[in-house]
């Protein structure tokens, strides 16, 4: 049995290895005759600032930022819809910019500040975007909703910051807050329930756009 070089061999790894050995002992007779390779997961320590709180995690290097949030910190408001960057349900804010957390390994974010839906507001203290989604019924099943809201908050900031999009006609001018701009920028967040029309209304209200 070979033991590959771990970046760090924590107490947790040792326990894990023990578990793995115990797990295969059921087929001990065959395993004994034919030695098999058990490679321990390569782990690393990661420090994140999640919703303002410092977190230290010992993570398998393959763990995505999404799974670090959901499975290790139990912040399950961030959703896994496709795990391939195709649906946007996993959108979170990293250092103030929105990303698909499924397309990013947790270890790539050492020391960074992550804001999830839980960090935007709570049922008793809603973020204005959360309140607007409720008022305009910008959701149905609720599964894409945290990603939509994180994206929506970031989109308004991006427009305010003057970042152009595919539909911005004058790249030298400040992009205007319009339904067309918002729809374009939100198009990475799929809502199969089809709440798009209502989501744009919620965003328009928060952004101060009057139809």
């Amino acid at each position: 049995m070979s033991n590959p070089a771990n970046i760090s061999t924590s107490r947790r790894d040792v326990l894990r290895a023990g578990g793995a050995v115990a797990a295969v002992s059921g087929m001990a007779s065959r395993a004994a005759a034919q030695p098999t390779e058990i490679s321990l997961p390569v782990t690393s320590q990661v420090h994140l600032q999640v919703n303002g709180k410092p977190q230290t995690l010992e993570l398998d290097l393959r763990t995505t930022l999404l799974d670090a949030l959901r499975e290790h910190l139990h912040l399950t408001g961030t959703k896994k819809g496709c795990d391939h960057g195709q649906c946007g349900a996993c959108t979170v804010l990293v250092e103030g910019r929105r990303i698909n957390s499924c397309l990013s390994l947790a270890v790539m974010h050492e020391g960074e500040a992550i804001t999830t839906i839980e960090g935007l507001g709570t049922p008793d203290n809603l973020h204005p975007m959360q309140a607007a989604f409720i008022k305009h019924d910008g959701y149905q099943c609720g599964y894409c909703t945290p990603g939509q809201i994180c994206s929506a908050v970031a989109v308004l900031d991006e427009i305010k910051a003057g970042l152009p999009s595919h539909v911005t006609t004058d790249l030298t001018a400040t992009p205007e807050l319009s339904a067309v701009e918002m729809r374009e920028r939100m198009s990475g967040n799929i809502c199969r329930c089809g709440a798009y029309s209502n989501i744009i209304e919620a965003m328009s209200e928060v952004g101060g756009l009057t139809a």
Partner: protein
Amino acid sequence: MKFDTPATTNPIDQLKIVGKPIDRIDGPLKTTGQAPYAYEQNQEVSGVAYGYVVGSTIAKGRIISIDTEAARAASGVISIVTAETAGPLGLGSMNTAKLLGGPEIDHYHQAIAVVVAETFEQARAAAQKVKVRYAKAVGKFDLVAERANAKLTNEGRGERLTGDFRTAYAAAPHQLDEVYRTPDQAHAMMEPHASMAKWEGDKLTLWTANQMIDWGRGDVAKTLGIPKASVRLISPYIGGGFGGKLFVRSDAVLAALGARAAKRPVKIALPRAFIFNNTTHRPATIQRIRIGCTPDGKITAIGHETWSGNLPGGKPENATQQTQFMYAGPNRMTATRLAVLDLPEGNAMRAPGEAPGLMALEIAMDEMAEKLGIDPVEFRIINDVQVDPNAPERPYSQRQLIKCLRDGAAHFGWSKRSAVPGKSRDGRWLVGMGVGAGYRGNPVAKSAARVRLDAAGKVTVETDMTDIGTGSYTIIAQTAAEMMGVPIDKVIVRLGDSDFPVSAGSGGQWGANSSTSGVYAACVKLREAVCKAVGFDASKAQFADGRVAVGKKSLSLGEAVGPKGLVAEDAIEFGDLSKKYLQSTFAAHFVEVGVDAATAEIRVRRMLAVCAAGRIINPKSARSQVIGAMTMGVGGAIMEELAVDTRHGFFVNHDLAGYEVPVHGDIPHQDVIFLDEEDPISSPMKARGIGELGLCGVSAAIANAIYNATGVRVRDYPLTLDKLITHLPSFA
């Protein structure tokens, strides 16, 4: 409570809370990420292990061998279950193909093993190490090729004849005879199928994303060969279903088997790229429609035949359903034929039957209107019918399709539409308007609920009804609040648990009407119990403002029920009113599109739906149901298609990049108008269904608008630009 005579005046008619556009009561949890879905029940289970499913890479044949040795030896692996090691498994009564395949393989990506490991990453890595040898068999994957072998089915009444279609069609002065095609479609709900299983002795608790708790409980038990009473299903939040979560799927069964083998709780979410071929889809159809008319536009003969395919034992896509009833005409023929295909299992997707049926029928109506030189709105009005055209003694409970069409035309500015296609231009855009009528049945189903009133005057409703985004939590709270005379914030609604009374569940757009009627029935019983406790005459008692009163005698509800509170449980059971009356829901969809004159890019510019669906319990959540369905209809019209590899037998575009669904940029502002109706024949709520109606007819309205914009008639969905571009009018 039996519902076998039309409703009279009841407390719901007060409409203090029912009928109001109240914000969803689950909104604060959903918008803050606090609503736990099946995979996220961390507060319920500790020490959970992760399952990863292995799927077949052939569509038909046999497994010669599965070598799990390398996978078992991989880091963190706890157990591996295959059909060989799972013990005997039954087939759920709602399933066509086995949820754990082997040695026979029925379809591509049929689950053949589950690997359970300490972490998700370990389970996924180990699953790649399972080595499978197959003996591939020849399968049938091409509906067009198998059409000739399709057989009439009893589903959708097989062949249904009224009058003499053949003779009347042959004699009709104006005829239309066209063939339409709709593709395989995917539900593509945002939450993957997911389950978490925990065994305590021989009792199984399964947190699972499922629309129909009691069906699911029964089929889990049947599949595992254990008593139904040993299974508990919990599903408080479901990230969309659209029919894809009506049934138990591999995630549930394999989580249970994996947890049994691992001797600890196991959770599984199906990977997105696995869902399209592993689970169910809406089957593709070929539809032939013939319409014969008099010169003044009266239909004399209407024929609609449909062909679809499914695995042996599967059902057809019943696309002729609406054509049996929707328009007048003394001579009628509908026929539903089914071929055997070895593709993944076809099954219900939102408005099964009507959605693809109307995609074809409502283009045919547009084509016939044009042949006749009659406006397509008027053509539909001319052929309205107020009774079952196959049995004129059976009236509709209520049918205001004409008003939907007229109100919609006025609101949308239909009079500005050019009857001649290709005549309207807005810069680079060819602009067109289209109409499509919507029709969907109003099924109802037995539904039970338990209602508790406590000393604080709080009302708690428990039923195994599910909320898949439909608004069940909210409309059930509205119903209980109206019935018990309390504000909505005094109502607690608990759903989706098989420990609660069995409801109608979420499907076939029966959920809202049936489940709120069940809550109504339980509340009637609770009102009687409250009155009995305080010696009031229940027939005279008023429940309002948190109090129960008869004349000048009045008590708070808390005082009335005392410190122990009171509980009542009842079900609504529907009699034969749906046999005596034809019960349906109606819509008129109006759409304006722009088609780029050079590239044939299609943009939907405006959408309006006018719906007639009885009383609308909550106009806000009902409107969302309709705009969501309209959005799905845009997908069906211009982008959604599961591409079939007819050599290897699978859907090629099995993820959300390849299977395109509408995104924000595809959808304009949408308008919905509800006709002010109440339907006492439908239920004590006087409501009908709405969840599927919004999808019915909208794709055809878009197709008709594209025709009106371009003059190019496409009868093969989806209407992608490649089907238009070579036919577009030339321009300078």
